Every structure is written in structure tokens, then in C-alpha cells.
């Protein structure tokens, strides 16, 4: 990774943190509490496309740790995010490495597993499987938001193809 790539990686990371933070400030009345549109995942998909799987893992890990360091702290929220991130990253690696799925398939699988990872952590912490109903809604939301994120990321990638080569 040359200097230019490192700088761009940093910009992507800052952008994802900023979008994630702004999203947490917006309360969308049509969504259930705690649910987000996951717009920062658009940046994650760009990193995956430009830098590959190895740096995508680094990006996801840094995003969760820095988000906790800057905004939420290392409490329950951190572990919930970490749970979602781990399951989501594993899914992205498996799907992108072993299948010929496009950005849409990868994004949907990632979004659904991210939601399920979060619910699993909460279920373990709270010692209840009643959040199963929440997992259902998270999965449905993940499918929709995954497609939206992939659509936006694909549109950006089409327009910014030169970034990779420069």
C-alpha cells in the first residue's frame, strides 16, 4: 500500500465514522428503536472493492474500535457492534472468496449477518431468546438496506473507477 492508498484508506475510515455517527443522531420514526439504515456500509463496500479482503477486515475492525473510542465507549454498545462486525466480516470473506456473488449478494448477506450478530450478542448478555422477534425484523431490514447500500456503492464505483488506478 503506497502513501496515496494509505491516505485514501484514512479518508474512507473517517467518512464511515462520520456517517455512522450522523446516522446515530437521526431518529427515523418508521424504523424500530436501535435499527439503522447502515449507510456507513456503503464505504465498507468501496474499501472492499478498492483494497481487497485483507484491508476490509482492518477497516471494519478500526471502524468499530474508533467509533467506541470517539463516541460510544467500550460498554455494551461496543460488544454489540463487535458481534455484528465479526459475523458480517466472516460472511463477506466467505461469500466473496468462494462464490461469484456480485456486490449486491455480498452486501445483502453481510447486512443480514451483521444484524444477527448483534442480536446474538444481546441475547447472550441479556440471557433471553425473546429478541428472536427483533432478529426477524433486523434480517428483513438487512435485506433491504443491503440492497440499497450495494446500489449506491455500485453507482459510486462505476463513476470512480479511476481512483483505483491512480
Amino acid at each position: 500500500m503506497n502513501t496515496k492508498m494509505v491516505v485514501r484508506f484514512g479518508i474512507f475510515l473517517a467518512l464511515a465514522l462520520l456517517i455512522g455517527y450522523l446516522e446515530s443522531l437521526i431518529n427515523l420514526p418508521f424504523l424500530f428503536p436501535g435499527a439503522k439504515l447502515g449507510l456507513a456500509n456503503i464505504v465498507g463496500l468501496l474499501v472492499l472493492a478498492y483494497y481487497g479482503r485483507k484491508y476490509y477486515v482492518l477497516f471494519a475492525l478500526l471502524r468499530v474500535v474508533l467509533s467506541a473510542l470517539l463516541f460510544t465507549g467500550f460498554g455494551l454498545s461496543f460488544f454489540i457492534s463487535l458481534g455484528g462486525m465479526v459475523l458480517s466480516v466472516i460472511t463477506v470473506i466467505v461469500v466473496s472468496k468462494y462464490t461469484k456473488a456480485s456486490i449486491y449478494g455480498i452486501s445483502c448477506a453481510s447486512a443480514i449477518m451483521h444484524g444477527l450478530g448483534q442480536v446474538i450478542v444481546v441475547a447472550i448478555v441479556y440471557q433471553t431468546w425473546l429478541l428472536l422477534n427483533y432478529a426477524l425484523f433486523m434480517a428483513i431490514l438487512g435485506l433491504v438496506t443491503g440492497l440499497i447500500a450495494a446500489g449506491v456503492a455500485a453507482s459510486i464505483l462505476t463513476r470512480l473507477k479511476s481512483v483505483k488506478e491512480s
Partner: protein
Amino acid sequence: MDLKHNKTDYVIYSVCLAIIMALLIAFLSVRTVPSSKANVYYDNKLVYTLDLSKDETWTMQQKDYPLLLANLVIEVKDHAVRVKDEESPKHYCSILGYQSEAGTSIICAPNSVKIVIEGDNAIDFQPGGVN
């Protein structure tokens, strides 16, 4: 990475839908056991017992319970209890909605509040602690 839909995507969408269907089936098949009372614990101490046979709304004031992040409102309606309003980072205890099954706990860990629905018969569960 391909930027356009392909056949593999549809396989992935099918798997995603299968996961959703499995969750839906599991959700619908959850067994429920009705109950008549629920105990409210604050900082692991019993502070109130709700009668689930009567509709009522009980507000825990932050001035009386300083560990609360804000006033916490508990509502009993149609033999079920829920946390109607609370302040917490993820709002998981209000997301749970109405609960009526004996042995169920609604835990608001950031507020140090736990609501345990007590059983009327031998199917009681031992509630876990709030850490």
C-alpha cells in the same frame, strides 16, 4: 467484484429469505404461559409488584431511582407488561414490547432495572441477575 446482479446473487437472496422464514417460524412457535404478576427490581432489589390482571402504568422517577438514565415507564395491559418509555443506548428493553410468559425477564441493564414475570405454576424459571 462484479457490480451487476448475477445468478449467484439470487442463490444468496434465497438463503437470506430462508433465514428470515426460519426466524419467522421460530417466532410464531414460541410457547407462551400466562401469568398474574410481575416483580420490578431496581439495583437487584424488589421495588414494586405489578398485578397483570389490572391495566396500569407505573413511572419510575429518576429522582427516586438515581441509577435511571431518565424516567422509566412500565405499562400493564391485557395481562402483559412492557417498558413503554426509557432512555438507553439501544432501547432493547422497550423493543421487547409486551411480555406475558412466566419466567420471562425484561432487563434494562443501563437503567439497573429488571422486570420478572412470575409464574403461577411449576414452570417458573430462576431469573438471572443484572450485571
